[in-house]
């Protein structure tokens, strides 16, 4: 289907290059990244000594969203500080993202 989701990944910043590469390989047409700090089940991650988090947002079709999530789950979820979530969005120029 062509409904578009905004998929957000928050992960240890050391993973940023790998994840960005992989989501593009799996079909995302682009992504937007920013540096964030945060806390979850792991330690507080808010400084450069111990590492901060990266927030990667990508607008993708439902299929690709699912594909990326499956991949992330298999490769990263058990081992790294990381969460991922998504919700539908309305975009201008749908074909930009497909």
């Amino acid at each position, binding site marked *: 289907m062509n409904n578009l989701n905004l998929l957000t990944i928050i992960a240890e910043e*050391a993973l940023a290059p790998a994840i960005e590469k992989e989501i593009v390989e799996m079909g995302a047409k682009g992504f937007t990244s920013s540096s964030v700090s945060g806390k979850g089940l792991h330690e507080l991650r808010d400084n450069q000594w*111990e590492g901060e988090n990266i927030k990667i947002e990508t607008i993708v079709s439902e299929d690709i969203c699912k594909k990326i999530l499956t991949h992330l789950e298999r490769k990263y979820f058990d081992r*790294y500080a990381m969460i991922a979530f998504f919700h539908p969005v309305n975009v201008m120029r749908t074909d930009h993202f497909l």
Partner: protein
Amino acid sequence: MLTNILSPMVLAFLLGIIASRVKSDLRFPDSLYQSLTIYLLIAIGLKGGHKLSLAPFSDVWQPSLVAVGLCCTIPLWTYGLMRRVGKFDVPNAAALAAHYGSVSAVTFSAALAFHDILKIHYEGFMPSILAMMEIPAILIGISLARINTPSESDLTNQPVKEIARELLAGKSSLLLIGFLVIGFLVGNKGWDQVAPLFDVPFKGVLTLFLLEAGLVAGRKLSDLRKGGAFLIGFGILFPILHALLGIYLGKLAGLSIGGATILGTLAASASYIAAPAACRVALPEANPSYYLTAALAITFPFNIVLGLPLYHEIAKVICQTN
């Protein structure tokens, strides 16, 4: 020892610890921390390269050999001890081995400053020794984990060769080695151009950096109990042991008292820039609480505050008896 504790560097470090204990809102912006790191690595590299260009090769090769020998063997016994005595699992033992085999550029800088202040001579090429000691131990630590883990066709298991490449191209060794070469090549004329930025204010910048290091170490102190008594004991005794070894072998390799003490300090120091980053990616199952706490909250403060004067005394004894 008092001279060391009363140096601006050490006091700034202690102030940082106090600040984080009293929950001060003092924070260094991330980019200041990154900028200071870049500065320190360039400054160490440039000066070391410059001094290396003035040293005869015959003075350099023996200490280099000893240094590489040290940083390749330290991970081995550290790993063994961690597994058997510390009862750590494979990834955690390997990560600790990587950290304690590798070296800390900031501890190294503090050691230089310590000797400068006491006006004790040391070999100017020591930064090249620092550069050699950074990476091998990390690779050995990671390899130890790989060898001792039943290999699954895991998609996260980067080949060690790839890790080596990343470490070599990594920020800290690239800057250190790159500017060692630059310092070596540019001669006195080039050195004079960069010294006003990279040499003259060096101790001031180090003071700033140690203030920030104190802030982080202070926050980590509350993790100490997670590590437990074993980790505290290890984080203090092993550095002393490694320092002893480093000093003794340094002396054998022909280093001056100052040079031997600095080699000992390098052996005693634990990496907390290159190693944590590499371990996080290559050994994700290892728990940062252990290695970061040990390296940053135990060994680093110990080395900076008490270790340096202690190693200096040890070196005096060793060098006089021989």
